[in-house]
């Protein structure tokens, strides 16, 4: 499922959050939106999800205009920065939520819901934790519940807002590699927002560098490091990781 944004503009009062942003994400790609805070990356992600509306421009899913499709009908998986788990529901019920709220005629039977949720919990390595509540989990576990919940509705695209932002360094590194393999295994089309260049360069197929509501450069990690298109990109990416690690050692 490809994603295409066509000249998206979004203003908040006098501030322009996004100006004429056009972006293409091919089916099966894992793309990072990278930029400092206030660069418009989260706004772009939320517009793709349907959580916000652009002032002008279009969002297309696989070539079809989805700009005015309500958020619940877009079949996107969205992982919130602070997970937004339902605090009054168990892990199991959190994951089952998207199935349970379907209209009766397309709602799976209880047995099927159970099977699918259990399978998802296994996939995110949370077997046996279905009866726990969000507050009884670690940050990394919550993150994985949020992912399982998003995947339960079999989304066409997976959108993640700072997926590792609230985790400590060690857990971040583990989850990064795990997210990449999950993306490959499930053959998803994924977009994630981050302000951490290392994270973006390490796992994304392509990185979109954003600044001040505009796209500065789009390219593979290799392309960006080899030939940054602007001073901003060069500064923001900094020296390659390998070099930094050498000097740090």
């Amino acid at each position, binding site marked *: 499922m490809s994603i295409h944004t066509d000249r998206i503009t979004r*203003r*908040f*009062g*006098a501030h322009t959050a996004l100006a004429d942003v056009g972006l293409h994400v091919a089916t099966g790609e894992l793309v990072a939106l990278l930029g400092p805070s206030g660069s418009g990356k989260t706004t772009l992600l939320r517009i793709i999800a*349907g*959580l*916000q*509306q652009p*002032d002008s421009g279009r969002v297309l899913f696989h070539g079809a205009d989805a700009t005015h499709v309500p*958020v619940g009908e877009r079949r996107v998986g969205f992982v919130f920065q602070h997970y937004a788990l339902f605090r009054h529901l168990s892990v199991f019920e959190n994951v089952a939520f998207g199935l349970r709220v379907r209209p009766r005629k397309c709602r799976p039977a209880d047995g099927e819901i159970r099977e699918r949720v259990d399978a998802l919990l296994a996939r995110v390595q949370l077997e046996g934790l279905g009866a726990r509540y969000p507050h009884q989990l670690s940050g990394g576990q919550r993150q994985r519940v949020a992912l399982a919940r998003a995947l339960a509705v079999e989304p066409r695209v997976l959108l993640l807002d700072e997926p590792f932002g609230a985790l400590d360094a060690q857990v971040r590194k583990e989850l990064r590699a795990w997210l990449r393999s999950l993306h490959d295994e499930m053959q998803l089309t994924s977009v994630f927002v981050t302000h951490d260049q290392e994270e973006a360069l390490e796992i994304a197929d392509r990185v979109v560098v954003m600044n001040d509501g505009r796209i500065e450069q789009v390219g593979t990690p290799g392309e960006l490091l080899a030939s940054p298109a602007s001073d901003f990109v060069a500064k923001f990416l900094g020296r390659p990781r390998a070099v930094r690690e050498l000097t740090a050692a």
Partner: protein
Amino acid sequence: MAHALRRPSVLPGFNLALGFTLVYISMIVLVPLAAVVVKTTALTLSQFWDTVTSPRVMASYRLTFGASLIAALLNTVFGLALAWVLERYEFAGKRVVDALVDLPFALPTAVAGIALTAIYAGNGWIGQFLEPLGVKVAYTPVGVLIALVFIGLPFVVRTVQPVLHDFEAELEEAAATLGANRWHVFVRVILPALAPALLTGFTLAFARAVGEYGSVIFIAGNVPMVSEITPLIIVTKLEQFDYAGATAVASVMLLVSFALILAINGLQSWNRRRYTRTH
């Protein structure tokens, strides 16, 4: 989108919820209050002025606002003491006291009125000890004061308690390491931090006291020019079918209420800002 009336949101139900809220609040509160303003215009300006400044009404303002002010001040001082004791010390029955602080919110005012009268009358449990000292409480302005102190008691306690609860001990420790004694720490470190909450509680207690009726009329004796509160003047005028007069006095009180609500909202947002800044 500076021109939009509301910031767009993906959540549904805004129009329904706001529409219902506006219709309800208009029907129950705003339109009826507007009736006061409209009815007041039935009087000429000089009639209005004569009504709201007649000696008996003036005396009632002095009593209502004066007693409310003193009651709120008393509650600020003793409310702070109660909040302090409840937050920082341990003593038997603390939980019960903490729960009972809200009694003046929960106890119907008429019940409070007759109970206070029974206690503070000349032969009452407490009144019998005060009478020999020449202090008459029931059926005097002091009785009005007692009733207003009662109904205003929870406000300062409840606004100060959370601030005291979350007060950073490091600030006091820092002051102590700098050589300040306990009194200095209290006056220079703790009190300034509590000031917005104290002021909010004071204003809430004052606002409540100004309009209070039920608990006061039993203990006040209601002697014109001496122990007659302004809300009672409104009721008396109504009972004499002097609607215009009742409305005129009510409009003066409404004006005060509006001013107090604005002050309270201002204070509370100041409180919040102040409070979050220390974090």
